[in-house]
């Protein structure tokens, strides 16, 4: 008689650092795409007017400068950050809407007592309160990042 296998508690496996996922989660890919577009435009010197090059270059640089602190923080957290268990406490509303639906941030409190926030999103995309999650702490600033967005 063979009994069905019971589900077990898994051994924790730390997520491997993945550059593409980090670029996606930090939205730094937008800046890189704009800069790449600007670079491509430089090849059409005769026909292309100047303003698309300037717009995409300045936009890419500006976006990159805006996202750089968060990207570096996420990088440090993913590379050498402390891994903590956290509990979702609430969802905090924001001023942003998407098709009339208010966008929220998920708020958590981790094992060391520090609290953190996720990025904007629909409320149903985040796990509800009292759900356990895993966060990575940035060793420099102490800011915590949800593993799902890292």
């Amino acid at each position, binding site marked *: *008689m*063979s*009994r*069905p*296998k*019971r*589900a*077990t*508690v*898994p051994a*924790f*496996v*730390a*997520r*491997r650092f*993945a550059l593409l996922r980090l670029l996606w989660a930090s939205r730094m890919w937008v800046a890189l795409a704009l800069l790449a577009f600007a670079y491509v435009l430089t090849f059409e010197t005769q026909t292309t007017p100047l303003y698309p090059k300037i717009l995409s270059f300045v936009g890419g640089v500006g976006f990159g400068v805006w996202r750089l602190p968060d990207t570096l923080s996420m990088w440090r957290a993913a590379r050498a950050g402390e891994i903590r*268990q*956290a509990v979702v406490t609430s969802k905090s509303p924001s001023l942003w809407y998407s098709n009339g639906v208010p966008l929220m941030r998920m708020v958590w409190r981790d094992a060391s007592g520090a609290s953190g926030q996720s990025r904007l999103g*629909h409320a*149903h*995309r*985040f*796990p*509800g309160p009292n*759900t*356990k*999650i*895993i966060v990575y702490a940035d060793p420099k600033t102490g800011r915590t990042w949800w*593993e*799902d967005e890292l």
Partner: protein
Amino acid sequence: MSVQRKTPGPTIVPDQTVQPDATDVSTSLVALVFHRPPWLALGLALVAILLSQAPDPTNPDATGVSASVFALPMLSLAVVAALPTLLRVLSQKRALASGDWISARVSTVETLRSDAVLPRHRIMWTDPVGRAGRSLVIRKRWVPPKGTTIRVRQDPTNGRQWWEGDFPGIIPEAALMGTGASAGSTKGARLSGAWSRIGTWVAIFGGVFTVMLALSGAPSLLTSLPVIALLLGLRSTVLHHRAFDRALRFGKRLEAKVIRHHTAPISRISSLKNRRGAAMEWETRRGHFGETDYVAADRVIEIGKKITVCVDPVKAPHFGKTRKHQGKGDAG
């Protein structure tokens, strides 16, 4: 019929039969890939093939180049489009090869495209450690609701988790628990709907073409082609019949619901009053789904009514057990 339903069924003795586990189910590369087929990549590859066959310009004063120069870029696009599927399949294979099932709890049900008639969903779960996972997009009506305990598998290299519903052909454990033991009747398995299966017709027409070619003195190389079709069709039919027989003899019963009918396109000439046969698509409460063979009009169960499904214990597929007049009116 109503009397039968009120009487208690056979005594349920759970956990005594072998349940299909990930190691028992054939999770071949093809099955894993086509669980969520990479349609975009396949389409792009087809376009690339077609583009590669574009003729070169023969007109001496033609300008430009042949469309075949776009074949290689299109092929690279196809490769890029196939990349997510490839990563998924590799990760799922790793998850199946090592480790064990992890029980997790559904933390949220994401609604994608909520304005659609049939919104698509994705579940998100949390395991005891706190690792979060997302399922593939569930294009079904029944989704495991929030708070349900589900089984997932973890890919050991990157910690990515996969719900059992994301693997082809795995029956959920909870759905199997408490379902009645089967009675051992093989009455319905005489031909198991073989006439409605494409393999049978491939075999029949393969045989016909073989005879025709042999009588007309065609070269043997050409005659061997329908023979191959005949053998493949026969194999498909026989394997299906065996699986059907197993499912009816000692397969588990699942309670499912008919969600859609796939009917023949021609209605006027096939029957009166638009009473057509149909292949019934069904789903269990846990979101696992399948389709029955094409059955005649008097065996078709209405959409939304219950259907009993037998699970072949050796391989994965399920077979709908259609009962005459089941679900018509207030029979229960």
